C-alpha cells in the first residue's frame, strides 16, 4: 500500500474544500497587505483590503490531506475506479460553481 494511491483523493477533496472555504470564508489566517500584517482566522479589513486567499489555500491543503489520510483505510480497487472519474469531474464542477459565484462581475 503506497501513499500515492490517495493523491487523487487529495485533489478531489482539495477542490471541494477550497470552494467551500471561499463560499463560507473559512480562511485559517488573514493577510492585511497595506500594514503588512498576518492574523489568525478570518479578520475584518485593517487600513485597506484583507486577503483571505492564502488562508483558503492552507485550509484546503490541511483538509484534503486529512481526508486523503482517512482514504488510506478504504479498499484500493473501488477507490481507484471512483477516483479516476471524480478527479476531473469534481474540479470541473467546482470551476462551474466558482464561475456562478463570480457571475456578478460579468453581468453588470
Amino acid at each position: 500500500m503506497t501513499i500515492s494511491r490517495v493523491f487523487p483523493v487529495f485533489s478531489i477533496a482539495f477542490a471541494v474544500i477550497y470552494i467551500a472555504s471561499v463560499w463560507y470564508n473559512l480562511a485559517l489566517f488573514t493577510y492585511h497587505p497595506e500594514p503588512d500584517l498576518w492574523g489568525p482566522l478570518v479578520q475584518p479589513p485593517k487600513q485597506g483590503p484583507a486577503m483571505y486567499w492564502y488562508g483558503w489555500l492552507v485550509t484546503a491543503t490541511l483538509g484534503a490531506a486529512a481526508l486523503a489520510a482517512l482514504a488510506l483505510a478504504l479498499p484500493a480497487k473501488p477507490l481507484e475506479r471512483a477516483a479516476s472519474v471524480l478527479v476531473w469531474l469534481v474540479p470541473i464542477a467546482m470551476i462551474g460553481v466558482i464561475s456562478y459565484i463570480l457571475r456578478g462581475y460579468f453581468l453588470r
Partner: protein
Amino acid sequence: MVTLLLIIHSLLAVALLGALTHQAISVWWPATRRTGSFVSGLRSVPSMSYTNAIILLFCLTMIPGAIVYAEYRIVVRVMLQDYRLYGPEGAFELKEHLVAIGLGLLPAYWYYWKQPAVKDRASTRAIVTTLLAVIVWYSFLVGHVLNNIRGFGS
C-alpha cells in the same frame, strides 16, 4: 521589486505554458513515428519526462505570483474598481481560484503520469492534463491582459 517579480512570473509562465501545451498535444494526438516535421516533433515529445518539470514550474510560477498578488489587491484592483472594469476584475478573481484548483490537482496529475504505460489510466491522464493546460492558458491570458490594461510600468 514588484516589476522584477512580475517579469520572473511571466517568464516562468511561458515555460510552463509551453511544456503543458506540448504534453497535452502529445497525449491526445501522439505521433506513431517521428518524421522530422514541426507537427510531428510537436506530437512526439516524451510526455512523462515533462511531468516533474511541469509540477516544479507550476509551483515556481505561483510563488512570485502569490507575492505580487498583494500589490495587485492594493493598487491594481482599486484602479479596476474606480474605472468600473468589472469584467477584467472578475476574470482575475476567477484566475485566482482556477490556479488554486490547479495547485490541488498536481498530486493527482503526478499520480496518473507515474505509470504512463498503464492503459486504464490513459483517459484520466489525458483529461487531467488538459484541465491543467486550460487552467494555465486561462491564467496566462488573463494575467497578460491585466498587466497590459494600463500599460507596463504606468
